């Protein structure tokens, strides 16, 4: 085995060649074969290709079982996955040649459409498997997910303790923001995480602006659009314990924003690498059903 093989390059892309031979042979047979009338599944070639296709689909589905036979010594999972990807893609050609490019609004076309959807989702899967892992590593920056979660919990506690020293309103705002932050949970939340540190930062800003206005008595608020401006503002004022706490609070919130963004991205990438399987697998079961119906109907009602 080479030192570095992916699903696509496994064993010098052995199964790419197997798939190509299969496709080329099918095309040649299709062109050479001269059926009576239009080509379709009913000719001998149609039967042959149909049988090959059906067997392939059954075998492709067996990947789900092979994957869970951890002690199995027959080939490696990498080899199986590589064969799965290439031979699965070859199905497109085989299925169309089998049907003689005839489609309609019937159970046969349903099977074809389902198959194409399964294949398309599989292709997205391969894309996801090749693209997202490296992004994930870069985003992680050598921490682990648990460490990030721990840090967030800790930052939340620190923020609350600091906010407590500043003002009850700020405390309430931080508490609300902590509660509203939702990372993970449903698949939807994984892909679109909700991260509410901004609202806490907004509240702190409002608080500062208000304090500033009170002090100036002219009712004018100073514009503090960024965190930097806020910190600047704080450092320009006399150092009392409240200001100190506020400044620390800003630090904590900024850090939390960084960590939650990173964690959210991490979960999102993980979800992207998994979510397609929730399409791929159920549709492949649907396909199996449609395929059975297709075969039964062909044999009984032609």
């Amino acid at each position: 085995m080479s030192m570095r093989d992916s699903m696509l390059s496994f064993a010098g892309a052995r199964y790419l060649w197997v798939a190509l031979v299969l496709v080329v042979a099918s095309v040649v047979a299709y062109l050479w074969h001269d059926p009576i009338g239009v080509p379709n599944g009913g000719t001998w070639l149609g039967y042959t290709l149909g049988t090959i296709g059906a067997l392939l689909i059954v075998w492709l589905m067996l990947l789900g079982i092979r994957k869970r036979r951890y002690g199995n010594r027959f080939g490696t999972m990498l080899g199986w996955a590589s064969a799965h990807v290439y031979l699965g893609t070859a199905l497109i050609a085989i299925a169309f040649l089998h049907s003689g490019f005839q489609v309609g609004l019937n159970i046969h076309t349903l099977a074809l459409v389902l198959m194409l959807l399964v294949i398309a989702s599989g292709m997205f899967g391969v894309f996801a498997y090749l693209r997202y892992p490296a992004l994930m590593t870069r985003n992680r920056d050598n921490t682990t997910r648990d460490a990030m979660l721990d840090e967030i919990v800790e930052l939340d506690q620190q923020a609350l303790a600091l906010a407590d020293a500043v003002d009850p309103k700020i405390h309430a705002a931080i508490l609300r923001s902590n509660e509203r932050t939702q990372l993970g949970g449903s698949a939807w939340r994984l892909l679109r995480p909700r991260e509410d540190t901004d609202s806490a930062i907004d509240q702190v800003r409002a608080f500062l602006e208000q304090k500033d206005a009170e002090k100036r008595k002219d009712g004018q608020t100073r514009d503090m659009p960024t965190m930097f401006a806020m910190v600047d503002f704080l450092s320009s004022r006399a150092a009392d314990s409240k200001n100190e706490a506020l400044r620390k609070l800003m630090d904590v919130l900024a850090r939390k924003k960084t960590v939650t963004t990173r964690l959210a991205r991490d979960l999102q990438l993980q979800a992207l690498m998994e979510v397609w399987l929730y399409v791929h697998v159920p549709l492949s079961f649907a396909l199996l059903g449609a395929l059975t119906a297709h075969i039964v109907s062909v044999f009984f009602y032609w």
Partner: protein
Amino acid sequence: MGERVDIAVVGSGPGGLSAAARAAELGVSHVLLEAAPHLSNTIFRYQKGKHVMDEPGILPLRSPLPFKAGSRENILRDWNAGVATLKVDVRYGHEVTQVARDADGFRLQCANGATVVAKHVVLGIGMQGNLRKLGVTGEDLPTVQYQLDDPDAYVGETIVVVGAGDAAIENALALAKNNQVIVINRRDEFARAKEGNLRLILRAIEEGTIQCLYNAAPESVEELRVGRKRLRMHVATQNGKAQILCDRVIARLGATAPRAFVEACGVVFPSKDPNAVPAISEKYESNVPGLYIVGALAGYPLIKQAMNQGYEVVEYILGRAVEPADEPLLKAKFRNVAGITSVNALLARIQERVPLLSKITPLQLREFLIDSEIRTPRPGDRIFERNDYTNTFFSIVDGEVAVLVDDAGKQRIALKAGEFFGEMGLISGRRRSASVVAQSNCLLIETPRRSMNRLIQSVEAVKREVDKVFIARALQSRFTPESGIEKLKEMVESAEIRQYKAGDVLFKEGEAGDCLHLVRRGSLTISRDLGGKEVVLSYVPAGNYVGEMALLGESKRSATARAAIATETIRVDGEAFKRAVGRDPLLRLRLQAEYSTRTAANLAMQQIGAGSDIVSFLLTQGAGEATDILLIDESLCVRCDNCEKACAETHHGTSRLDREAGPTFANVHVPTSCRHCEHPHCMKDCPPDAIHRAPNGEVFIADNCIGCGNCERNCPYGVIHMAAKPPKKPGLLQWLMFGRGPGPGESPYDPLKPPSPAEKKAVKCDMCKDLGGGPACVRACPTGAALRIGPDEFIAYAQSRR
């Protein structure tokens, strides 16, 4: 004056206890002095409910006290009952601090002031050592503790924790949940703590949940009669004296190894090695006449062995001859050997024939044989194969073996009775360098690694002999495999063994070269300074040499050689080497050929630049001592954890690898998983010697593990866990179709019925050696991210990742 007895037994572990019980049974005047306030402190301190095992199963028990596998509680209960019925004269809280010889015999001085005079002393104080005390007045108050069994037993107290190690930190953190905790640290940081503990304690101190006094030392503790707190502690701090009112003091200051005490009794240790135990006679008598040693301190680390010795030592003291309890085991070993009728005849024959073993005491030889196997292979039988990873050591008592250096079997070396072989694998921790085939009338002793290492460390003469032979054979097989050693005589005489710590430099680029090193244990990296950066060019495992380039022409070192891990080399004098090359044109040719391949490889490596960083990264992770390490390519890993599931599924439900943990560099991730080290740290201190290396290199734990947890602590990579065997899972189809039980890769445990902590044994990666076809983690990875390789392949791996 103190009381007088015939036998004073020190320490009530299984060894000492059994001795005192036998003395009591026979009505001999005796006393059993125990430092702790209860029997058998080592066993008392096992985890609650621990299942104590009675390995070795075949060894019969010989003691007035019962012992069979069972829970810690039952065993201690039975012993307490036995001590009462036999009327053993046991004195708790009597820590012996001094044993001096005088005209009357021995005078034993205890820490509490008591003295005992005895004709004979039996030391059974084990290897665990005594907990270090505060060393100030008040150190023995009942609320000054040196141990903490259940942190949840205390609520709402003010507790002072003294110490800065992991035990102190863990206690402080656990107590801080329900109590006010003050930590007293003698230094200005927690230097000895593990990374995780350090983070937690610093955070707790910062948050104020724990207070810490740095650079502080307790001066005294006093009990208070009035007020709400029970104790007052006086502390010297940087800013002067302070007083702390508290309810309890918990001091975790580690233990003092018993060695200093034993040496003060006059007993001699054979070497500085921390695992060395004193040499004792067949009757367990030390070099001090009348002073006997039994149990773990005598090198017998299991309960049953210690108890048997306790019994026997009393018999010997009384001048009776008893057949040692392990006699039947020894007899069984030579059952099939013609011409040997008794154990003593066997021992005599071995000592007469094998010079190496003639230098040791009969007891050492017995011990050595108990652990060993006697083999009588037929002519032509293969003893071991070249490239096997086995590490046993063979002594030839009778007959002859042939060593086949090359696969074709053309080069043969004959070894005769009295010689030994297998020392290369033992010392280098690497694959066997030759196959060995039995010739006629062979009688061999095969000794496991641990027993052989122990012998080498305990007997200087054995070490010297093994090293001498090792040097000659290593040089000969590396430089003149086709001819004899004669040509290298001068080189061999100039050779000496050098030791290096990880990171030490053997020689530097640009220095003048005056010697050559043949690595015999560990490994080196060769690096060159390129634009101010040290670039690793190659990795040199044991069995290879470095430094010849400067001797053969260049005269200056063209690169730096550095120890990748703890390493031993054979240093050969440069002039002697040059003369040997000058005399032997064949050697010159061979060296030149190797020289040019090396230069080419170095050039290739120099060109890949970044790849060298990957090699350096792996080596800084300690991968240099691995024989086979799991790496994950994070640019391919989709974090499906199929690798972990496969591991758990094929290994009783517990994954032996933690994919996510561990560092990453340039997308190369080193997960927490066994590396099957050349010299496995986990093997170091395993009482039943249950950790072995299989021929393909897999380090695995056999079923006779007693669950003591030593290997878990000794593995620097955190890959060993204690786990109980879970119930069987339903089959895959049953799960798929009927939803029965936990599915593949799911946790096998019923959360409501956790497996009893009692029967835990150590589990670790065994590289799926029993499944065949390679490790399940790698086979189950759908993306090709998981890979297992050895250090020899690091360079090629780095190159493939460019």
